[in-house]
């Protein structure tokens, strides 16, 4: 060793001196960040070594744990699996609890805001039988529940009470084949009867094929059945298929969209509510008058003799009534009816010059139109009568078609709003596009040769007077033929199921 030091003495001394001065430099000097260079050099020198050492340690430890020490992995795996299963069950339980709390809260809010008097109930059992959709709720006559009361949720109607016991009640669900309720569509105000099918979807029956019902449309209770107050949501139209004589409309009940609910409300005292407004797309649209100097006469301005068989029949009956000074719908019981034997062969061709519409009070009054309005056209408008293609626009509000709405010339005259809505100020009567079967032509319409075919649909044209005085039996769903339903539709504010003249 000593010889080694003697041999490299000079270089050793050099290195020692250099090292000492390096230390001195490191201690005395600072970088721009006021950190001494000895710290910087030390950290720079130590960090890579520490990183290498840590990498080696971590690698060896990981190798040891991941490949060598695996004796308890299986046991730990089983433990973790069981813990995961337990957590999943707990998660499901908590979700159910949360849903229950949400439903209860929604029910409470709905109960506070609905004008109807309700009592909350909980479904405690389901009825026996695979096809029967019956449940039991924990409220009975003690709570004021009676047979025939409606059962609803904030989402929609659920069913009706078919049996009330002291402490429980039996509820027929909306999906039961024996269930029926009067409903009305939101947009077109088409009335129909909701029936259960034993499937998750219900159908709306007794809607004539010419009625316009679109998928996605909301259906509400009409109140005609005197069980469900008017204005409760029923469901959404899912499918509309043409049928003869009635459409086949399938509705998905909104009250049972998420399966059978647990908490419901029983309407102890139902209050009718208005049907919510249709979407913005159905709002009235103002259409300006045609530009001046347009000499082309609207095609609809001239009375047209075109129409369906029902129109012709109706015209004949109305003309006959006018001849005999008989006003349909305004005759008290016992009054002698019109002599229909003078009509001869119903449906026969109307003689030339025979007016299609009497000048009776039930027709839309042409005088209601302002003086500057175009010549009154056929009063027939209604929801089934859009303007004819190519018809020049006239100033009229594009009011969405409603039951017994503007322009309709009901033979019964039961719609008081019709005359007012038929000719609003500064508007012209809508042109006749396609004559509905229930629409009489305007007075002065030229005669047309009509086939002698009888009316097929049994509409108002065949027997306009008798059916209007027959109210539907109380407690039964209102099942109306299409035209009768339109005429029986009560005006706004009239309780559904009220007296119909």
């Amino acid at each position, binding site marked *: 060793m000593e010889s080694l030091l003697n041999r490299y003495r*000079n270089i050793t*001394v050099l290195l020692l001196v250099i090292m000492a*001065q*390096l230390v*001195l*430099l490191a*201690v*005395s*000097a600072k*970088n721009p960040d006021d950190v001494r260079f000895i710290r910087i050099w030390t950290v720079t020198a130590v960090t890579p070594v520490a990183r290498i050492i840590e990498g080696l340690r971590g690698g060896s430890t990981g190798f040891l744990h991941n490949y060598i020490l695996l004796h308890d992995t299986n046991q730990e795996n089983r433990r973790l699996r069981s813990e995961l299963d337990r957590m999943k069950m707990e998660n499901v339980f908590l979700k159910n609890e949360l849903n229950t709390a949400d439903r209860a809260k929604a029910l409470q809010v709905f109960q506070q805001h609905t004008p109807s008097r309700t009592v909350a109930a909980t479904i405690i059992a389901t009825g026996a039988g695979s096809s029967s959709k019956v449940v039991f709720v924990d409220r009975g006559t003690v709570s004021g529940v009676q047979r025939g009361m409606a059962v609803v949720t904030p989402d929609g109607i659920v069913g009706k009470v078919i049996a009330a016991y002291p402490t429980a009640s039996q509820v027929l669900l909306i999906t039961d084949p024996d269930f029926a309720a009067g409903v009305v569509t939101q947009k077109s105000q088409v009335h129909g009867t909701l029936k259960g099918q034993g499937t998750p979807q219900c159908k709306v029956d007794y809607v004539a094929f010419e009625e316009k019902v679109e998928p996605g449309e909301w259906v509400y209770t009409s109140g005609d059945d005197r069980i469900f107050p008017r204005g409760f949501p029923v469901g959404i139209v899912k499918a509309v298929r043409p049928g003869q004589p009635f459409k086949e409309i399938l509705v998905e009940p909104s009250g049972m969209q998420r399966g059978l609910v647990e908490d419901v409300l029983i309407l102890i005292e139902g209050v009718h509510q208005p049907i919510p407004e249709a979407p913005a797309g159905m709002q009235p649209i103002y259409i300006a008058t045609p530009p001046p100097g347009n000499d082309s006469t609207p095609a609809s301005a001239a009375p047209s003799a075109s129409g369906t068989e029902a129109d012709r029949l109706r015209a004949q009956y109305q003309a006959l009534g006018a001849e005999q000074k008989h006003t349909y719908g305004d005759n008290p019981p016992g009054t002698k009816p019109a002599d229909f034997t003078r009509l001869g062969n119903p449906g026969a061709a109307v003689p030339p010059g025979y007016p299609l519409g009497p000048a009776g009070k039930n027709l839309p009054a042409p005088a209601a139109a302002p003086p500057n309005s175009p010549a009154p056209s056929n009063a027939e408008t209604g929801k089934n009568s859009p303007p004819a293609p190519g018809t020049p626009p006239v100033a009229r509000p594009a009011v969405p078609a409603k039951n017994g709405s503007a322009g309709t010339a009901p033979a019964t005259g039961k719609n008081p709003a019709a005359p007012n809505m038929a000719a609003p100020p500064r508007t012209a009567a809508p042109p006749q596009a396609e004559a509905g079967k229930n629409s009489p032509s305007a007075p002065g319409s030229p005669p047309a040769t009509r086939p002698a075919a009888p009316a097929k649909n049994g509409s108002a044209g065949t027997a306009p007077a008798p059916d209007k005085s027959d109210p539907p039996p109380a407690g039964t769903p209102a099942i109306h033929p299409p035209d009768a339903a339109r005429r029986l539709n009560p005006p706004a504010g009239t309780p559904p199921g009220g007296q119909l003249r």
Partner: protein
Amino acid sequence: MTYSGERILLSSQREGQVSRFQKWVFLAVPLAAVLFQAYVPTFFPVLSFVEMPLLVVVYFAIMRRNQISGLTVGALVGLAQDSLSKSPLGMFGIVNTLVGYFAASVGVRLDVEHGLIRLLLGFFFYVFHQFLYWVMSRALLGQQMTFDWTRTAMLAALNAVVGVALFHMLDKLKERT
């Protein structure tokens, strides 16, 4: 190998003579060189190019022909120069230590009494000194400095000339055997 009839390289270490100086010379001359470097340029800026401590270190290293002695003189002179300059302690110390070590190593092999050798050594060690200082400034202190080779070469030539004259004067201080 001959140069102007005189030998430059020594065949063995025994051929070269080790110059001896009084002890006060080892103390006074470096001190004077450091003071010169510190104060003379203040009054005579034109003389600031003279690297007097470097020349003194080179002289003692090549004349003593002992590497430990040379690096010791270099370290002490360098530290003294650091103390009087704005550079961190150790920068000139390390540079002069290495200059002293290598100068002593070269002095063993060369005839350091020869004027041309002294001129070349002065030139070479000045460049070595400046380059090493630049490297250390960049590597150790992280300073972004530039190295001007042309200017360094010119200053090295001037310092070599000054060094030849200085070495001749310092030869007067050698002990006569």
